[in-house]
Structures are given as structure tokens and as C-alpha cells.
């Protein structure tokens, strides 16, 4: 049925979890996973991953660089439920317990090309000061039951969160047959398509 045209479109995402800014923390690692709608199915690549532990750079930026690759391909019939990448960052606390340092999510860019996204990361807050103290002591901070919660809006009204830092992601997006199915996501602003990122770390 090649004449009938494609029945699915493909979205290929590769890129990397580049780096993070967590001013107070060190030795962090991150997990990522994708949240997508019912009409989506991953066809190739890894849906989730866990990175190495990285330490702060010694320079002024104090960046936590992972450069952890992402490579996944989805097929879908429907742009509804466009994939979101959910990041959760963990690291040791004062007592060496592994605690969560941030959750964040962002939609995979829908226009083909190279995209850089910096997403703010947050963690749920303890319900009371006493809880906070004890959770600090026990090294069992409040966590989401499922990190995928951050990709959805439902039920979030019961939570309170605190900002923690930022994670920078780089996406290279390739789509196939989107236009044939009638979805014109269009190229992004051509001027904005940034080439290789400028060398960072120059003191500004």
C-alpha cells in the first residue's frame, strides 16, 4: 500500500543530556525516560537511560557535564501525546544517601533540526518543617512516586516544589512523513539554528 501513503510518521531524536547547573550539589547522575501518548510507540533506541556520576568542573562555571547520549526513534499516528523527556537527577547528600536533586521535563522539539533546551529542575517539598528535618536526617527526601508525574498535569495541584537547578539538553530532531500526514511542523527559524555551541567557560 505504498501508494496510499504512509500511515505513521517517525520522529527520531538524538542528542545528549549535556550538562547541568546545580549550584549547591556535586557528584550527580541523571536518569531520563520518555513519556508519550498512547498513539506513540518507540521503534528503536533506548527509552530510558541512566548516566554516569559527574563531578563539578573546577572552573568558575562549576558545570556538571554528562554528555549523556539520547537516541530514540518513535513512530506515531497522532501528534497528541508528543513525547516528553523526563529527567531526574540524583546525587548523594551530606550523609552519602542518594537523594533526588531535581525533576524536570520538556517536550521533544517538534520541528526538525538542532535544539538546545535548558530546563529548570525542581524537587517536591516536604509537607512540614519537621518532615523536612527528618527527611534530611534520614536521607529520604520526598520523591515523586513516578518521575513521569512531572510530564503530566494531573494531580500536580497537591504538590509543592522547590527549584534546584538547570539541565541543558541538546536535541537533534529528524521527522519523517509528518508532512505527508498533514502535519507541517516547519523548519525552525533558520537564523536561530545554532551551530556548534560557542566555547563556554569564558568569563563574562
Amino acid at each position: 500500500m505504498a501508494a496510499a501513503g504512509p500511515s505513521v510518521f517517525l520522529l527520531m531524536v538524538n542528542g545528549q543530556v549535556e550538562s547541568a547547573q546545580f549550584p549547591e550539589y556535586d557528584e550527580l547522575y541523571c536518569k531520563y525516560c520518555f513519556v508519550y501518548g498512547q498513539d506513540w510507540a518507540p521503534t528503536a533506541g533506548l527509552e530510558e537511560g541512566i548516566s554516569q556520576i559527574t563531578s563539578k568542573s573546577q572552573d568558575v562555571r562549576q558545570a556538571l557535564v554528562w554528555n549523556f547520549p539520547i537516541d530514540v526513534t518513535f513512530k506515531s499516528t497522532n501528534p497528541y501525546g508528543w513525547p516528553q523527556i523526563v529527567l531526574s537527577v540524583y546525587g548523594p547528600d551530606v550523609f552519602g544517601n542518594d537523594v533526588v536533586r531535581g525533576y524536570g521535563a520538556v517536550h521533544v522539539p517538534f520541528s526538525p533540526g538542532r535544539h538546545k533546551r535548558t530546563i529548570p529542575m525542581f524537587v517536591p517539598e516536604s509537607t512540614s518543617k519537621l518532615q523536612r528535618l527528618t527527611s534530611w536526617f534520614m536521607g529520604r527526601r520526598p520523591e515523586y512516586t513516578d518521575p513521569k508525574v512531572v510530564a503530566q498535569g494531573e494531580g500536580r495541584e497537591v504538590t509543592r516544589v522547590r527549584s534546584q537547578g538547570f539541565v541543558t539538553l541538546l536535541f537533534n530532531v529528524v521527522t519523517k512523513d509528518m508532512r505527508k500526514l498533514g502535519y507541517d511542523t516547519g523548519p525552525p527559524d533558520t537564523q536561530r539554528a545554532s551551530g556548534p555551541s560557542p566555547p563556554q567557560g569564558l568569563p563574562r
Partner: protein
Amino acid sequence: MNPKEEKVKIITEEFIENDEDTGVGRQKKTSKVARQKRKKRLPTAGPEEMVSESPHLGHQQELVQEDSDTRSLSMTSRRGPRSLPPIPSASRTGFAEFSMRERMREKLQAARSKAESTLLQEIPTPRPRRLRSPREKELETEFGTEPGEEVQRTQQEDDSQSYSRVKFRDSVRKIKSKPPVPPGFPSAEEAYNFFTFNFDPEPEESEEKPKAKNRDGTNQEEEEGEEEEPPVQGEHKTDEEELLSAKDDEDFLLGLDHRAEDFVAVRPADYESVHVRLQMEKELLFVPSRLTVPTYKKLPENVQPRFLEDEGLYIGARPEVPRACQNIMENRLLTQEPGRKWFGDDGRILALPNPTKGFPSRPPILTREQDIKAELETLYKKAVKYVHRSQHMIGSGDPPGNFQLDIDISGLIFTHHPCFSREHVLAAKLAQLYDQYLARHQRNKAKFLTDKLQALRNAVQTGLNPAKPHKSLDTTQKAINEYKSEIRQTRKLRDAEQEKDRTLLKTIIKVWKEMKSLREFQRFTNTPLKLVLRKEKVDQKADEEAFEAEIQAEISELLEEHMEEYDQKMEGYRAAYQQWKAWKKAQRAKKKKKKQAVEEHPDGEVEEPYPGEEPVKPVPPEPTDRALVEQQVRERAARSRRRPGEPTLVPELSLAGSISPNEQCPRAEVLRREDVKRRSIYLKVIFNDKEVSRTESRPLGADFRVHFGQIFNLQIFNWPESLTLQVYETVGHSGTTLLAEVFLPVPETTIVTGRAPIEEVEFSSNQHVTLDHEGVGSGVPFSFEADGSNQLILMTSGKVSNSVSWAIGENGIPLIPPLSEQNIGFRSALKRADAISSIGTSGLTDLKKLAKWAAESKLDPNDPNNAPLMQLISVATSGESYVPEFFRLEQLQQEFNFVSDEELNRSKRFRLLCLRSQEVPEFRNYKQIPAYDREIMEKVFQDYEKRLRDRNVIETKDHTDTHRAIVAKYLQQVRESVINRFLIAKHHFLLSDLIVEEEVPNISILGLSLFKLAEQKRPLRPRRKGRKKVTAQTLSDGDIKVLVNVIRAYDIPVRKPTASKFQQPARSSRTFSEKRAASPTTHSPTHSADYPLGQVLVRPFVEVSFQRTICHTTTAEGPNPSWNEELELPFRAPNGDYSTASLQSVKDDVFINIFDEVLYDVLEDDRERGRGIHTRIERHWLGSVKIPFSTIYFQAKIDGTFKIDIPPVLLGYSKERSLILERGFDAARSLSAGSYITLFITIEPQLVPGESVREKFDSQEDEKLLQATEKFQTECALKFPHRQCLTTVTDISGKTVFVTRYLKPLSPPQELLDARPNDPQATAELVARYVSLIPFLPDTVSFAGICDLWSTSDQFLDLLAGDEEEHAVLLCNYFLSLGKKAWLMMGSAIPEGPTAYVLTQEQSHYLIWNPCTGHFYGQFDTFCPLKSVGCLIGPDNIWFNTQQYDSPLRINFDVTKPKLWKSFFSRSLPYPGLSSVQPEELIYQCTDKAAAAELQDRIEKILKEKIMDWRPRHLTRWNRYCTSALRHFLPVLERSRGEDVEDDHRAELLKQLGDYRFSGFPLHMPYSELKPLIEAVYSTGVHNIDVPNVEFALAVYIHPYPKNVLSVWIYVASLIRNR
């Protein structure tokens, strides 16, 4: 003593070590000999060496000396930290020994130091070498690396500090570089190097160090002061290199080889003296003094400080800076820069008044990414005005804009106020008069009229002169006449004006006098008003002349006037006279004609001419007339005009007067003033009847003036219809009162901001105020006179000075509503107002009214200004335009609908998406909805549509009974609605659903966790740890397993010898003496098969089947087998959906069947025995235990001993009872005869059971009661968190109901009562059996873990399905009606988990009834499945178990004891008499027997077919004879309820059937559906016999009970003919 001594010791040791160390470190390669050589040689090394070393030498010698002086101290302090740990000898060594050692050490030390010092003095070179090395090192580290990295870093880190330092260094360096090196004067060193040095490139050093070297140089120079040898600098050669070269030189001299690394590598240990560092720091750092700098230093010479403040100039407040900081800054500035530009004339640092910004400013977000910054760039867009819907009618083409009306409210003056004192009243009057005067004076109408008069007179004069001949005489005359008349009028006006002026002046003076007298009278002044009359001298003569001339002119004019008048009259008279004459003539002629006739009327006719003659007579004689006129004129002049020569009086009102201070006033006046102070005024600006803004509240001044000075810019959209100011007065803190409304005129379009004059608009209020102080009040009569006469009533009044104007836009265009719109209203504001009032301001929506108004007001339809309105009206009256009568929220919705709704509905894809998002069960998890409609199969919807269609159609295909079908349908619907509710509730999240948070640990947990720390890692008796629970999301098929641990069984029925067919064992003789269980192993199966007689044996094994997966244990032997085996059964969730909701609704049961394995020898021929074994294994079903999966799921584990459900008759088997006694079991056990199996069942991994919905259902209960229930429950949960406490339940309609309402005596069917009228116990059992026959359907399955829904007993009987609670309630109600004391008992049992039982009190003991099985247990029955009791519920109270134990064996059921049972209703909360939710009476219909019989036949047929289906490879023969025999037995069984019929039954059967070996059993079930029956038959495995000649028998019997409760008996048997 000890520590000190130790320290000393350490020091000495270190010295030794240090010497060695340094020696070793320095001279790694050179031997000791070489060193000695060198030492000797060095003094003779030559002058060069000496010279080169000399700068250091000086320095270092100094240092060394210092060091040696302060050695002990500095060394300890410096070396202390890295000293070796103290030798722990002090305590052990004896004192003598110790002191000896010490002394020795001291001596040694002294000698050493002496030697050293001598060495230093005598041979200086080795010392410097040694000491120089740290210096070299230091240079290397500090200046070689630091400038590269360290300095940079420090610069960044603390900028200020390092900056200053660097700067300072620089400056020093500058100074340093000044001393010139004599050019062309090579030093000895240089010269030496030139010849000797091998100029190897040393890149790392030479490149890195210039700066450092420079600095080094500077340091040295400064340290050394005047040194005879200035350091060589010009050629980048520094001391260090020199040193190196010197070393080189040494090595060279010594003839030792060296490599390039040596220069770098051979470095002595880092060393730096504190003093050196301090010294250096002193040079480097500058510490400004904190002392106050004397002023003269800060100012240029010979300048005195000048203090501007003293000179009266304004100087802002200087920022607060501590004195010390200021001093430091001043010192620094003075030292750093000699320029005094930082200091002001007063000798202080120049400072801005307040350098801080008054408002906070947000710091820029520091993002590193450029593009992010660009993205975040905000673009300011003005808010877009939303155009009103109703606005489209008028001037729809006009661009809507912002129009602005500026209202400037400058102030408010009260002309009267209740707080006015009398003086104020006068003052106000005076001021008013004065204002009037001023206004008049400004206009000066009198003067204007006088001038006019003059001009007219002149004109008349000129007109009389024949200067203009061309004009016709006629016109001139006419003009003159006009002039004259005008002169007359003007004169009159002028006179009136002049008179007014004069009276005004008089009044002013009068009022002023009054005021003065009042002030004198009351002895204080309230107002600063002061009237001054200024006299203006006039030239008396000229004045008199002018006066006289004026009078003369006036007289002449008057005369002239009179003359004219006279002339006119004369003329008129003449004319009249002529007429009269003519008339007289005619009259006379007439008279003559009819003289006789009219004799009677002569008088009237004579009278007639007289009036005509009269004016002629009074013609005044001129002289007399003139005098009279003159008199009149003079009189008038005297009255109205200033007398000639009299000075003109100019009143001047000033506010220069002083008000008496409060102390001088009487109390009443003070009160008044206080009152005034408390009052404040504000204005509201009302635009089109809406408040748009208001002024600030300003206090009322003592002069009753309020200054606002506020400008309101009204951004308006509609043409202003009204503009009102409301004056509000606030008194103290009490409320505000509306004083008055001031209506402002809407300004003309020409009045724009900047050109609008300030206008005063008066207002007055009709409020009545009476005050108890000096204030006169408002609307209240008062008088100035002492006697109270001449009363005045003054109302509060005042003036608002304001200006209203149109604003001007940015480009100079006035912001006035456009012409077309404005014209309608503006051209005739009155009409406009009429239109609005007639139509209503809410909008021009009612066009009919508008048309009516247009007709009434006679609008000119041709006026272009009215064109839009007329068009609108015409459209409206013709009805062409559609005016919406509603307000539309999404006006453009239709435009945005890209397809019509029908088309949208036709789209299959869209429908699919919709259904999925609605979570319709069929589509809830639909994945990958196709992209095109054409790819969606029509059949996708078929099921769904069918379900929708069938919702109301009851089909009987699956159900053999229509009633059941209806019930099933109903249940299905209830389930659906509840599930829908559940789905909604699922979207309500709690914090715990989203966030995992540790509970706050209490002390006990903390203690426990502390205790845990101390506990052993591998304890000898390990405690069981809870398994980790798994959330169901990540699971897939095969992940979950059901583990069944079959441990042991008791009292399995044993085979009965077939031989008994010939004997008729008595019923009483139950205990068979020949049973030998002790030797089961000795029997071989074949043997037993051959010789079954007398051999009592059973070889039971357990088969567990779950979801059609079957596992079985090995075969054990004997009636009390022990297997102890673990069986693992995989679990598959329906549709692969492992969500909690799905798992909860799994309806599968775990069947645990116990079989007897029977081996039969199939050897046909006895001769072959010994050569082969041919046996056939048969399995005989003995009993089963059924455990629903949901129970396992919710309980997580099931552990206990269960009663095996053994059919009442097991053909070929009998219960062995003697064993009980033999084994010495408790006698109590024999009470509950039965077989038991011990099981442990669990799920691996452990699943998190779903929680019930936390939805709070509404209730019709009393709120107080509900609160009490909550309190009760929390109290109970606090004490015994694991005990079930139930106070409210949810009924089938989803309402919360108090639980006792369910309990009410309800009579059981009469049929049951009649069965055993004399035996209450039997009746009770019968009733229990009846209740147990109602099928069991757990709520948790039907309502997927949502909640327990309690149906009332009639609902329960109608539905014929319910769980434990319904059964228990019904049974309890029956017992209550039977007159028993019965309670509902909430607790937990195995395997059900939390459940409901019924407790009855018999004469002496309590009985526990299981309502689902109909069995009852004594309180002390160990095999009672009820394991714990939470609470008891009676018809009028709830008792919570507060006893220590909750096992029914150990508790006391006496609810009257408050210590043991906490009751809900007590004295504090008496039972309010709650009405029951149960019906008055249960109505039982008799079940149709014929239907039951039909059902019976159908079931039998279906089961037979099923058995044949299950045996696909074998022939299934039915033994009709046996079947009919069985069929006869079943009613008997029903009658006896399956008890005590076995032996009779068996005997009869044997008699009938003859030589058959058969196994079989009756199954008894309540009837709900067909499927459970089939399942039950299947699970017995009767069909599994594959003996070729096997025959089957199956009989079904249904016993109908009232209310369609059916008891189903199925008798299954297999027969094998014995040969």
C-alpha cells in the same frame, strides 16, 4: 613538667633530623666528602662568588641572627605541627633517668648551637647556602607560579584586596625602576658570567619570571636599603640566575657533571620566616590608619574650611558611614593620590545625599545562553481594547479609540459648614460679598455702560450735525432715534448697576462691622479675614465738573425725551382731534337725522371726544419741567452715585488677621476646632453613574478649605453621559456621609487640557446637623442676636473648583470621541440625554424604543449627523438586522470550526479519540489510533455499540433463569456506574499518590531504629523481614506468581473397604478398631489393591489449579499427610493489564483439591506377575478448598489451617475418627468434625493492594452523628489500629448510612419456621443454611476495590448476590426475629480477611456463625475461621473491642462491661432512635417448582455435555440406572442438609448397583450461574478417569427455597464394574 620537657626533646630531635634532612635534600648527589671539600674551598671561591652572594648574605645573615635569637620560640611554633608524635616514655621512665637525659640533651643542644653560631660567624658561606635555598624555593613558588595562576585567582576572588596590592606593587616597581644602572658598566658578576656561563636557553624560567624577578629586586633593595652594589636589572638577569650561575660555577669548579634539570630540581625545602613575610607584607600592603585626618591635610594650603550649611545653603543628608570607615577612606585617598579633588570645601569627602535608589530594581537574569536571552526578551504590547458587542450599532465603522477626559479637582471651599462658628458665617458672607464685589469690579459694568452712553451721545451729536449729506434725512433721523432710545436704556442700566455697586459696598461694610462687633463680643477671632477700606482721593474740582456735566447731560436728555414724548403726544392728539372732528361732524349729521330718536343718550356721546382732548391739556411748561427733571436726576445720582469729591472706597479683604490661639478661646470654641480637625473630605468621581476614581481623603482645614490638586485621567470609551463629583465627609473614624453631589458639565470639544479654566461649581446639601459646640450647624435656625430674633437657616454648601477637559494625545490630537458618535450626543446634549433616559443607559438595545424616541423628538432625518441613527432605526423597524438578546462568550466559535459538527461526528478517528479520552472501557487502552479514517475498521466499534444497544435488552442465553438474568443485568449496571465513579475519583490525587515521603518518626520508631543499629548483623534467630512491595505498573506477563505452600492435612477421609457391601455396619459403630494407620508404608499399592479388605489406606495428594494451570504435590500417605511442598502458579492479569484496578477485579479462584491416588493392578494375567508391573492410577476427589484470588491479593498472604470442603457423601471413603483419640488430640477438635489442610499462599512479588476510594459520600445522617462516628473511629484506631471498627457504611445508592440502621428483626420464610417448630436450634441452622444458599459475590470483585456497598436485606434477596456483610446482616436479622440475642461481628477470618460474622448468645454460651457457609462454631472452637474480633454491632449500638486480645477464644463477649467493650452510644451520647433502612417486612414469593425442575434438567444436560467434552479421546458412557438411583438420593441429602446419611446411602447404592467399584460424591452449591457449577465439576476431576470400561453417573437436583433461592445438588460418580 612533662609536656614541656617533651617539647624540648622533640625540638632537639628535630634539629638533628633537620640538619640531616636539609643536608640530604640539598645535596642529593654530592657526597659528604664533596661537601666538606666545598666548605673548605668556598672561602677561596674568589671575589666573584662573594660579590654575588653578598646581597643575600646581608639579608640572610640578618635572618639567621634573628632566627638564632628567637630560635626556640619560632621553631617550636613553626615546626610544632609537623613534629612526630610524642614518645610515650615520660610516664614510664624514672625521674632520675629522665632528668639525666634532660641534662644531657641540654648540654648537647648548647654545644650544638654554639658550634652553629661559630660556624655562622666564621664560615658564612655554607650557612647562606643552606638558608638561601628556601629562599630560592620561595622565589620559585611564590613568584614563579603565583603570578601565573594564583594571583589571577585571588584577583577574581577578592578583587579589592588584590587590586590594591597589585597597584601598590606597581607603584613601588615604578619607583624601583628609577635608579638607573650605569650603562655600559658590567658588574663583576656579569663579566664573570660572560666568560664562564654556558648560555643555555631556559625558557620556562626566563619567560615566566620577569615580573617576579623585578619584584624580588624591589624587595631586596628595600630591605637592604643603601647597598653598595645595586642589583643588575637591565639584562633580565636577576639574583636568582646569578645564584644559579654561582651554583653552576661551584659545580663547574668542583668538576661535577650536572644536567639541566639540576637547576630546577635541586631545591631545598620551602622555608619562610614570619618576620620576612611580615616585612614583605609591610612593604606590599598598605594599611590605612583609622585615625581622624586633620582638616588642614585635606584642604589646599591656607584655606579655611567652609561650611555651606552654615551659610544657609541646602545640603542633603549625607549617607550614614561609620566614622572609622570614613577615616580609613580619607587616609587612603590622601596617601594614594595627593590630589584633593575628593574633598569638598568643608574638608569632608564629597558625598551624594543618598546614593541608594529609592526603588528596588530586578537584577538582570544571568543566563549564559545567548539565545535564551533573546527568547526571553519581552516585547511590550499595549493592551488591546475589547470592543463592546453593543457598540457595533453606532458608528460601527469608527475606529474605536481611547478617549481621555481629564478632570482636575483642585479644591473645595465650604461656604457653609455645620462647624462654622458665627464668625465663620459672617466671614463666609463677607467673603462671598467680596467675591461678588471683585467680580463686579472686574467686569465693571457701570464703567462700560457709562462709556457706552458717552459713545451714543457722541453718535447722536454727530448724527445731528449735517456732516453726512449723502445720507437721506430720513435714515439719519431714524438712526438718531434709535440711538436715543438706546441711550435711554443704557442709562437706566447704568444707574441700576451703579446702585448695585454701591449697595454691595455698603453691605460689605455693614457685614464687616458686624463681624468686628462679634469678635469684640466673643473676645476671640476665628477667621483671619480683615477688611480694609482704601480711600482713593479724587480731584474734587474735576470730579464735581464731571458730575455736574453728567447731570446736565442727563437732564438735557431727559428734557429732550420729554419733548419728544410731548411731540408725539401732540401729534397723536392732533390726529385724534381731526378724527374726532370728522367724527363729530358725522355725528352731528347723524344727530340731526335722528335727534329725536336718540335724545336719551346724549351723555355717552358727549363723553366720547373728551379722552382725545385730554393729552393736549397737560402739556408741561418747559421751565417748570426742567427744574423737576433736574431734581429727579440729582436725587437719583445721590442715591446711586458717589458724591462728587467723596473719596472712592476700595474694600480689600485680606487674610492677614490673626486667629486667637486655642488657649484664649472658650471651651465651646475649642471643641468646635477639635471637631473641625477630625473631619476630612474626599470626592468621588462618578462617570456615567459609575465610580471611576476618588480623591485622597484630606482633612478639613480650619478655614474650611480642602485642597486636592488631583488630576484624574479618565480613559473613556463611551460618550460621557454624566459626570458627577460626590463630596464625602468623614468624621473621625466613624463612617462617611455623602454631603452633596456636584454635577459637572461635560466639556465642549474645544476645551482641551491646558486651555480649560478652573471653574467653581457650587453645591449644597440638605443635611441637618446640630452640634453641641460653637458650630452653628446646618439646616438649623440660629441667630446673631442675643434675643434669638432674626433667625437664619443655613444649609451646608460649598464650591468645588475643578476643570474638565479633553486630553491631548501623543501627536497633539485631542482624545475626543469621534465626530459621528459624538455629534449625536454632543450637538444637542439635552436631546442626547433624553435619548439615553428614554432608552436606558444600559445600551441601545431596544431599537423600538429608540425609534419611538426618534419620532417623538423629531430628529431631522436629513441631518447628516443623524444619518447613522436614522439608518439604524430604519433597519431595526424593518427587522432586517438581528440583534442578539444574549451575551456570547466565544463569539467567533463558528468561524473557527473548521468542519461542521456532523462531519466531525462522522469521522471515525475522531470518535475513537473521543471515546478513548472518555475512558470507555473498550477503548481505554487503545494504542496507535490510525492516522486515517479509512484504516479504522468498522468492527472496532461493534462491540461497543452492541453493548450500548444491549444495555436494556435482557438476554437469557447465558442464564438459564430469567430472574438471574435480570439480576445479572442490574448488577452489571450498578457495577458500571460505580466504576465510572471510581474512574472519576481516580483522577483526584492526594499528596501521597504523587510523592513518597517518609513519615515523621515518633520516639518509638526512632528508638527502634537506634536499637537496630546495635543489633547483630547476622542474628542467630533471624527475624522475618517484610518483602518489598511492587507497584503494579512495571509488571508484565509472567512476573507474578502465586505461591501455594501445602504443608499438611488432618483427618483426610480414608478408603473404606469395598467388602463392606456385605456387611451393614451399624451407624453407631464409627470407630473401627482394625484401622491401622501405624503401618501404611508396609503396604504396597498393588497389594492394597489386591487386598483392599481390612486395609485402610489413603494416599492423598493436593492439586492446585489456578487459571487452568494445574500443579500437584507428591503423594503422601495416611489420613494425616504432610507434604510441605511449594507450588508455583503463574498469574496472568486479564488483557495483560497489570494496573491496580485490573488486578482488583480478577475473579479467578485458586482451587486446592485433595485427591486420593489409587493404584489398581491392571494385570490381566496372574502369570505375568513378577515380570512386569501394570498398574493404573486413579485419582479420587476427596475435597477442595477454594480461595479467591482477590483475597490473596488483598491479604498479601494467607496462612492458616482451612477446613476442607468435603462432600457429605464420599462413596468409598469414610471419616476416620479413632485416630483422633489415638493421637491424643484435643477433644474440642472432634466437635467440628471435618478435614483440615494447612496452607500458606502468597503472591510473588508482593503487590501493593489498591486502596479504596477516599471519596466522601454524601449522607442523610445527622451531622452530629457523623462527627461522632469520626471521633469514635479515630479514637479506636488510635488504640487498636488493626481492629476493624465500623460505624458508617455506604449503601447501594452511594450514601453514607449509620450501620445500626441495617439491623432490624426480619422474619425468615415461614416455610423454614414450619420445618422444625419444636427445635429452635434446628430452625436456626435451617435459617443459616438458607442464608448461605444465597450466592456469594464479593464487593471487591464487582466494584473493583472501591468500597463496601451494603445493600439492605430486601435488595440482597432481590439481587441474590452479596458478600459477607449482606449475608451476616440478613442472618442477624433473622436471628433477631427468632428472639435470639444476636450481633453482627466485624473481624477478620481466614481466608476471607476482614469479614462479618454473626454472634448469638445461647443459654450459656456464644455461637459464632459464618453466614456464607451456614456453619456455626462455639466460642472455644479452635478451628473457627474467625481469628479476631474488632467490634460488635447491635440494632442500637456499636461496641468496640478494647480488650487486650481479639481472638474469640480469649475475649469476653459481655458487652455490658464498659472496660471490655467501648460502646458508641453511651450516657453522653444517647441512642437517638435511628430508624432502620430495612423494609418493614420481607415478602417471600414461592419459587416456581416447574421452573426449578426445568432448570434442573437443563443443568444436568449441560453438565453431561461438558463432561463428554472434557473427555475428547474417550468414550463416555452414562449409567442410567445409577443416575436414577443418585437422583433419588439427592432430595434426601437436601432434607438432611448433607449430614449423617452416608452409610445408609452407601448401603442402598450398593444394593442397587451390585458389583461396581465406584467413586462419587454429591456437590452442593447455591445457584447463581451455570459457570461456577461447571467449574466445580471440572475441578473434581471425575472426568479424568480413563479406564476403558468406566461408566459415569450424574444427577442434578435443585431444591427451590422461597425468594428464588435455589440449592443445587450435583451428584457425580464414576463406576467401574468389578469382575
